[in-house]
């Protein structure tokens, strides 16, 4: 039986999602990730604790939040740069206090909290609501962050889903300890494994970690549950999009008897969120790859004898 009282930090639940796994799905985004990919689309998923988003565009400079913050983490901006707003949040001082005085003080939608502590049964409520819409092929997808960062919480959600005969998918970096991944085999129908860069040094440079464990994990998963593993490659210009890398990933996929690769073109969805979290976006000038390039890379994958889907 799933422990429905187990709690974790969730930063979003999206129903009627059609891009992360088959059919109509509900995506549960869990906070926390060990990777720090430059192109991260959900930077709010990196830290496991709740954080405050600051929408500078909405800020009118009333400074109510400064007065309300018990930790003096908010100050007036001295360098009033365009689009950077009237205040600065010292993230090292912010303790994301539960009463959220700063957010409450803002009437202009400039401060928003991301990340909410939820119990498994609270997560399951919208999932069960959406269940009829899953029909034959849809279900739930755990995403993040990397759901394995909150392994125990994820495990209970997956168990609860299986108790209700719901198809389950996980989007993962496959960076967790293998035992943790292995433990989820009975409860997961599909692993959407991100595989970014085959070159270890480059992987370290752009994600902050080595790919050694990732490759080992995928190898083992492919041996244990081959039908459940799907390799997904974010195509990031200048980082992952060189033909050698894509070819190497395709070869790795084939060698491990996996049959499919999804190529996901880079998008800039993460950029504004980096800024709202007070962080620099590491790749402001990179543009999404064009259709032609995606088609060319698709061909590279297919040349290696692996089925490839773009998007």
């Amino acid at each position: 039986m799933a422990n429905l009282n187990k709690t974790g930090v969730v930063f979003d639940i999206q129903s009627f999602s059609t891009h992360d796994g088959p059919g109509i799905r509900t995506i549960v985004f869990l906070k926390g990730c060990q990777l720090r990919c430059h192109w991260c689309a959900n930077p709010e998923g990196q830290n496991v604790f709740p954080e405050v988003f600051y929408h500078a565009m909405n800020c009118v400079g009333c400074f109510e939040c400064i007065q309300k913050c018990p930790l003096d983490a908010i100050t007036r901006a001295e360098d009033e740069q365009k689009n950077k707003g009237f205040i600065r949040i010292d993230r090292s001082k912010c303790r994301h206090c539960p009463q959220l005085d700063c957010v409450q003080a803002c009437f202009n939608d400039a401060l928003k909290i991301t990340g909410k502590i939820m119990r498994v049964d609270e997560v399951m409520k919208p999932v069960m609501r959406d269940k009829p819409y899953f029909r034959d092929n849809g279900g739930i997808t755990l995403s993040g962050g990397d759901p394995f960062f909150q392994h125990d919480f994820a495990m209970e959600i997956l168990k609860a889903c299986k108790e209700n005969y719901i198809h389950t998918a996980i989007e993962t970096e496959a960076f967790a300890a293998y035992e943790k991944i292995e433990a989820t085999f009975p409860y997961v129908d599909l692993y959407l494994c991100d595989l970014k860069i085959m070159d270890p040094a480059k992987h370290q440079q752009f994600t902050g970690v080595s790919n050694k464990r990732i490759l080992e994990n995928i190898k083992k998963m492919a041996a244990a549950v081959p039908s459940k593993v799907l390799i997904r490659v974010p195509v990031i210009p200048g980082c992952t999009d060189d033909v050698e890398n894509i070819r190497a990933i395709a070869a790795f996929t084939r060698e491990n008897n996996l049959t499919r690769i999804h190529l996901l073109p880079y998008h800039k969805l993460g950029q504004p969120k980096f800024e709202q979290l007070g962080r620099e976006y590491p790749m402001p000038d990179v543009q999404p790859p064009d259709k032609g390039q995606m088609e060319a890379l698709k061909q590279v994958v297919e040349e290696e004898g692996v089925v490839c889907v773009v998007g």
Partner: protein
Amino acid sequence: MSQNVLSMLETGKTVTWPPTEAEQKKEGFVPREVKREPSTERGKRIRERFLNTRCMLDPQFSVHYTKAWQENAGEPLYIRRALSYKYALEKIDPVIDPDELIVMRKSRYMRGAICYPQYSQEFYKTFIEKSAETDAELFDVGTGGGKKDIKREGYRTIGVFSIKEEDVEPLSEVCNYWTGKSIEDVAIKFLEENFPENDDLVNAFKVMLYPPSVISIMEGRWIPAYDIIVERGLEDVIKECEERISNTIPTTRDVAEQIMFWRAAIISCQAVINWAKNYADKAREMAKAEECSERKKELEEIAEILEWVPAKPARTFREAMQAAWIGHIAVWMDCSVVGLSPGRWGQLLYPYYQKDLEEGRLTKEEALELMELLRVKFASEEYITPSSWAAMASSNQFQHMIVGGVDPKTGRCSDNELEELILEAGISMQTTQPTLGIMVNPKTSERLLMKAAECTKAGAGYPAWFNHETCVKHLLWCHAEEGITLEDARDVCMAGCVEVGLQGTGHGICHPAFYNEVKTLEIVLNDGVDPRTGLRVFEPLGEIDSFETLWENWCKVKEKFMKVYMRYWNYVVATRRQINPLIFSSVLVKDCVAKGKPMDDNGARYNKTVTLLNSGMVNVANAMAAIKKLVFEEKKYTLEEVCEACANNFGYEPVEKSGNFSMFNQKKVSREWEQIHRDLLEAPKYGNDDDYVDSIFVDLWEHYNQTCFSETSYLGYEWIPAALSITAHGPFGRACGASPDGRLAGVTLTDGVLSATPGTDVNGPIALLNSGVKLDPTPMRSVQLNMKMHPQSIKGTEGSKNFVNFIKTYFDQGGYHIQFNVVDSDMLRDAQAHPENYRDLIVRVAGFSAYWVELGKPIQDELIARTEYAAC
């Protein structure tokens, strides 16, 4: 939740769902996935002509009609009506446009409207005089957008319509004749003399609990029995009537009237046959003069067809389509009708299509071209109304064509190739008319569903999706006392935008229009006084000290004014029967001829169809939930404080200043009410699967339904509740002050019936649908849900499959209707800024599709503001 709406107020950004998508500023916008052109050059030329044609008012028919009406003053009413109809039909000029294959129309113009001064003459006069109408300021919003008034020599113009100078004088004379004799004038007098609650009626109109009178366009919302004109032909109807007359002796008054009705029916049928003959002669004449041999042949063919139908049974697909079309517009000439719906033409015409294909008379490509041309025919028939109604309905004709459903006899799937062609023509020839709907049954083929999904993705807002089994259930429930057969119930269509209709067997849904829910709440919260006009419309209600008292007061005021509205309408129809009983219209409704009675005298097979509509229920449910929670449960504010905040528009300047009628870009001028405003916005909102507010929503409807049932219609049956708003939520919103749901004064009310207030449905589309299905649609003639989807979210074949599954699941859960705007909000914004680039952009409004540039600004704003669902 409040953050969403507050953010809209400040930034003017559409709330998209999921919210992460909203935070991304896209470059440009995502175009519609499916976009096609008419399949032939002929189609392209006709479409171009249509888009560049101005709407014309043509009084020719009414001038002849009025002349004959005067000359036949001594005849019995039915005969007088039929003779006038016949004289006028035979007199009007037949006009055939270049390239046309399916011909005939109401007026001399491609986008022409005829006049019906026997209903109401006053506004034609106003039109001519170009003077302002009552409440013109409030209602003059139907003509916004990109249609420019171009001054032309010899024409007079108001809004989108023009009239030729030479027609002005004859129309004025006609109007003078009808002054004091039209239905509207006679009804007003009749009401003044006999209606005990006439003062309440007058007040309710003044404070805009009701919109201005719709008598000028009061008929409609039924589906004629086209099989009578197509499969039997009118000569056979004449024969039937002759036989009935020769077998009947006028014993009682009722029987005598039967004879008069049959005689009138014979005259009307002859009128329509002769009208078609005039067109045939015209085609022959044009053929003679035609130099292009191809066109000459076409014109000769047109003549041959019209010399055969509608008198005799159609023999070919083309004849069947032409005959059905003649039936359609002949009804329209008979009475001032809106929402006359073709229904299941895919079923009607399929046997002809199949036979022609088999016998080599027709190709699939030719059939598609005819379907495309037919769309323009439907779209070209305009009607003119007081500008007040134009604001209400944006002058949409609401002609609904239905695909899907089942074979009524066997209950088996009846999808066919012609229905696919109807959908295809809806993609390749995008016009607002006829609007399309698909009846989804568990037996509906995936092929038809996927075609309908493709058509939806073309972005014109059609087809609307209906749950066939729910519709059948409604009909079996509603017409049980009339002994409805399963076969008739299964043959369900849409009559008008989203109201359930019977295929050729039912009376129309003839109603007084919309009841303003938010205005009612304003009157309740202001102790019986309308704050906008200062008019007391209800005796003092006393202190509201609990939610129960609020509810009781609500019921009191609402019951009063709903009943007044329904009773008023019975008086109106009583006078209509004496002036404009429906003759030819009744010929094409079963079983009027068999019974020898017109539709308005219970001649139709089923008559429990009279409905009342309303607008603004979601606003009221949200307002009541907020009051219940903040005032009576948490006691954070007093009711006076809430009312005061509303009276001060929550510190925002009036919407007239911003010129924006949604919650976009409104300017806060005082911070005094920002806390209470946020708290009101944060209270539970309909559309999030939250029982706290959804249960109030359901209770409100239940009360509305029971109040309808408590009154008897002019046909002797209970009134039926129906729910849809067309575009009444625009002008109604402008007449209402700020409301406790957080809505600012003047802002457009929440559209549709089950749609959420823009920005307040924060848990995604499924939560909204779950809120919606809590309302049982069985006892209601219509329920409606509008959803805006981003094109990206249902892209490709997989996207279409997910989309179809989404709808099927909604229907499994009990949903009745859903329709989509598959369009990027950024594109709509661009269209608002550059209407000249979007002349052919069609969007779904409430129950219908409309050209973007012909919509009023409040409705445009509301459309942009609707929550947009983008898949992540």
